[in-house]
């Protein structure tokens, strides 16, 4: 049973990841990206990390996807689709992808993790909260600083105080 | 039985009014009222004093003063009315078509909110534009200077007069169609030569 679910999830995740990058329409691309993120959330469920999974859904699908959709709708100009990709570049990219996949996959398959399996119960999600404020508390503070910095920075970036410069762009 | 009063029996002459050869309506008011109210008289006097024979007092009735002006002076008179007499808004702008005189009269009813002594008063400012037999609204001689820069409140009224009579107001910033359908191609409808069917 778990295998079937795993396979389905793998297909969804990888397929929609490809679709997210290859679909012509950016809106559909974003929807496909949501599929990828949801698929990864499904893997988290399989890995007994429901807190991370739900966090992933709530944050990625619930808010980041919204932001992406909003931006995609905003910049919907046809200019976006005008530039046709370089064919050679594309093939090179595919080659790179294959090389990475094969080499890393070979490394992993070759290494010892193939045999790792566990029967121990998964860590409780409460441990995460305890970790946060005890062992990882400097990281938490750092995290706060990063979040604060990002919101500050993005607000400063996105506003248009330099109205004159903007007019120049026209 | 209820009491139905039948005051107006036979109304047979509703449609054909050929009995009276209607006198050519003219702007000059023949019969002035017997008692001329003093306050209203003072208003008309002020205007006459300022503009002399450029203006003509139509009538002075209780609460109503009528001034007839030529189309060259209407702007000046209106400015004087606003600045000198404290009138501050126009209540209505009506056109009246006089095919006999070959003129279209535009009548401004001007009132005042600010000055409480003028609250009852309406100053009727009438001016006339030349009338064309075959009007091309906006492109013929039926023109008047706009009063919109004097009285802001005439904006839509003048637009209405333009489409209803074809009187083009020079200097009006927005002489577009207002009430009639966008594809109206007939005569301006309130002119007397625009007849409605069957009448």
């Amino acid at each position: 049973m778990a295998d079937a679910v795993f396979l389905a999830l793998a297909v969804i995740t990888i397929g929609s990841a490809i679709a997210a990058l290859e679909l012509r329409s950016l809106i559909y691309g974003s929807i496909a990206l949501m599929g990828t993120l949801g698929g990864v959330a499904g893997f988290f469920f399989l890995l007994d990390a429901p807190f991370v999974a739900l966090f992933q859904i709530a944050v990625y699908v619930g808010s980041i996807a919204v932001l992406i959709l909003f931006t995609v709708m905003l910049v919907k100009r046809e200019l976006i689709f005008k530039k046709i990709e370089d064919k050679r570049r594309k093939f090179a990219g595919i080659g790179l992808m294959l090389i990475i996949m094969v080499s890393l996959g070979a490394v992993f398959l070759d290494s010892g993790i193939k045999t790792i399996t566990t029967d121990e119960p998964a860590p409780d999600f409460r441990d995460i909260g305890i970790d946060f404020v005890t062992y990882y508390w400097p990281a938490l503070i750092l995290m706060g600083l990063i979040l604060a910095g990002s919101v500050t920075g993005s607000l400063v970036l996105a506003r248009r105080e330099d109205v004159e410069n903007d007019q120049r762009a026209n | 039985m209820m009491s139905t009063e039948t005051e107006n029996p036979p109304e047979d002459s509703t449609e054909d009014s050929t009995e009276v050869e209607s006198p050519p309506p003219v702007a000059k008011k023949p019969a002035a009222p017997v008692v001329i109210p003093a306050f209203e008289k003072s208003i008309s006097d002020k205007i006459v004093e300022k503009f002399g024979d450029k203006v003509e007092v139509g009538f002075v009735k209780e609460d109503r003063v009528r001034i007839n002006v030529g189309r060259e002076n209407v702007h000046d008179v209106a400015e004087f009315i606003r600045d000198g007499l404290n009138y501050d808004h126009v209540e209505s702008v009506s056109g009246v078509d006089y095919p006999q005189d070959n003129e279209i009269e535009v009548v401004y009813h001007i009132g005042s909110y600010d000055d409480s002594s003028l609250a009852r008063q309406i100053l009727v400012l009438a001016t006339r534009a030349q009338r064309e037999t075959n009007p091309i609204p906006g492109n013929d001689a039926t023109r008047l200077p706009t009063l919109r820069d004097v009285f802001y409140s005439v904006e839509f009224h003048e637009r209405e007069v333009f489409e209803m009579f074809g009187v083009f107001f020079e200097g009006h910033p927005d002489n577009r169609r207002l009430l009639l359908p966008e594809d109206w191609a007939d005569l301006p409808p309130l002119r007397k030569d625009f007849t409605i069917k069957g009448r």
Partner: protein
Amino acid sequence: MVGELAGNYSTVVLMFGFAVVAMAPALVISRMISPRKKSNPVKFLPMECGQVPTGEGRTHFMMQYYPYILMFVVFDVMAIFLYAWGSSLLEIPKIATLPMMGFLAIMFGAMAFALYQSGRRRIW
């Protein structure tokens, strides 16, 4: 065992799927039994209050309120972080509240700045 917790959550997916399976036929049946007339060219135009529509339909973005969406992404993360802490509050020592308070203080600072920025509608 790996993956045993996932079974609990499967009912949610089941519910979701059931709703889809139950509601999609409703649309299909509706499409089947409803009358349809295609002859009309203006029928499928976007509805615009009895006018023939003009212009692009997807151009309205209330950019004046855009900062709120930016803020949402960040503070959503913060809010759910708080749950990791809040649900284990009964088990952690009291002193361990301090880092969380520090985190909150930083976020409050950021939020104050963001609210101030988004309040200035004229710059968006």
